[in-house]
């Protein structure tokens, strides 16, 4: 296997109207590592993740997945050339995405949610797809909830189904966009536990999170964004250990009253 990073982001710029949300981000996510994106709200961390998931189209710059260009390739003079959507879809299939709002489809059971793309996109036989989906559901501890609709599941269970849905397609990179931010504190733990298992299994993960404790203990790398710029990146002990960057200090202050600082 080549030494190419799983995700490579180069000079990425994203504007919404007149507001520049990402001001030229360079980032490399190594294979098998857990990279945690942290930063205050409005720092652009979710936008960066959504650009990599192709839910937003960047205005400038390039993204490579396992060395292959995503969406746009660099032309002979460095200009952006849009790639055909078939190629883009092929590259995108390496990526699994988990949302803050879970985004399960309410008219399908947990099993239906996990099976859907296997049947519709991957053209698997329903029987085989369901078998695979059941394996995924039991990996997240929910085989007994397979027949339940999302409205019958707790937030934590819904998020675990959403993780199973993404994993069923056998991605080699998983993106998480604040996966625990809409959960009660007591439900956060069960989702983080699933993510921790996934990290230990060697999955490449890019996680936007406010769970500083999780980032510090599971993250191989911490990336701190502020106002659309990458301010600091490094191992958790480098980023969180003293002496630390002044902005990180201010940022962490907001967590002191939540007790997270004791984990550092």
């Amino acid at each position: 296997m080549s030494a190419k990073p799983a995700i490579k982001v180069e000079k990425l710029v994203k504007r919404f109207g007149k507001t520049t949300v990402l001001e030229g981000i360079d980032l490399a996510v190594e294979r098998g590592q857990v990279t945690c994106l942290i930063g205050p709200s409005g720092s652009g961390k979710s936008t960066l993740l959504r650009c990599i998931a192709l839910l937003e189209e960047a205005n400038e710059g390039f993204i490579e997945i396992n060395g292959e260009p995503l969406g746009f390739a660099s032309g002979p003079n460095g200009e952006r050339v849009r790639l055909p959507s078939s190629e883009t879809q092929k590259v995108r299939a390496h990526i699994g995405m988990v949302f803050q709002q879970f985004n399960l489809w309410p008219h399908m059971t947990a099993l239906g949610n996990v099976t859907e793309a296997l049947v519709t996109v991957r053209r698997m036989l329903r029987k085989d797809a369901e078998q695979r989906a059941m394996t995924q559901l039991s990996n997240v501890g929910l085989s007994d909830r397979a027949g339940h609709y999302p409205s019958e599941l707790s937030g934590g269970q819904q998020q675990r189904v959403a993780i199973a849905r993404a994993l069923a397609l056998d991605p080699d990179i998983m993106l998480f966009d604040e996966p625990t931010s809409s959960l009660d504190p007591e439900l956060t733990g069960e989702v983080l536990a699933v993510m921790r298992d996934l990290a230990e299994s060697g999955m490449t993960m890019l996680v936007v999170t406010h769970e500083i404790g999780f980032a510090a203990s599971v993250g191989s790398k911490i990336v701190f964004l502020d106002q659309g710029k990458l301010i600091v990146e490094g191992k958790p002990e480098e980023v969180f250990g003293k002496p630390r960057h002044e902005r990180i200090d201010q940022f962490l202050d907001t967590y002191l009253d939540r007790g997270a600082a004791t984990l550092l």
Partner: protein
Amino acid sequence: MTFDLDLIVLYLPDIVRALGVTILLWLAGSALGLLVGFLIAVARRYGPRWLDWALLAPVELIRGTPFLVQIFLLYYGGPFIGLSLDSITAGLLGLTIYGAAYYSELWRSGFVAIPKGHVEAAQCVGLNRTQTLRRIILPEMTMLLLPSMVNMTILMLKETAILSIISVPELTLAVSALGTKYYAFVEGFAILALVYWALVEACSALGRYAESRLSKYRFAVS
């Protein structure tokens, strides 16, 4: 004046025949209106900007004028532009156009009501646009729109009464004719009201049944 119940027996055969025409036009007009309305909504949402604008005008025109006026112009004004239709065809076409305008707006509200994230989740697992529409948006929307669709379909039934002015042989025309013949309008229109009401109740009951089947995932059992 007395309320003559014997007249009901007298009316019955005519009413049954006209009822068939009413039901047929109602169901066909609603089904076509639903379909055309859906196509309009999809074109407005996914088509180019100019198409959205081009379709906005006719939808607003139909919603902004009485059905009575529309059907009158279609039937009596049609021949001036070379559109000579028999009354049933004109009636069905009129109902379809009228229904399509309203149904298209209902479909549009459905598209708006689907959370963006549900569509993004579909994109992320590789569903293309058609698959997303067929597998995610449409089924989710059906559940959301069912009550208002049933409501609109009930209105469609009652609009068929207007078709009597272009002499479509439907229920209202039949009862008016009988009323004139026997000079018994009150009995006739009382029956007429009951028949429409029965049909509306049947339609609502069907809607409630469908809702109870579909809403399983909307309202948690626990």
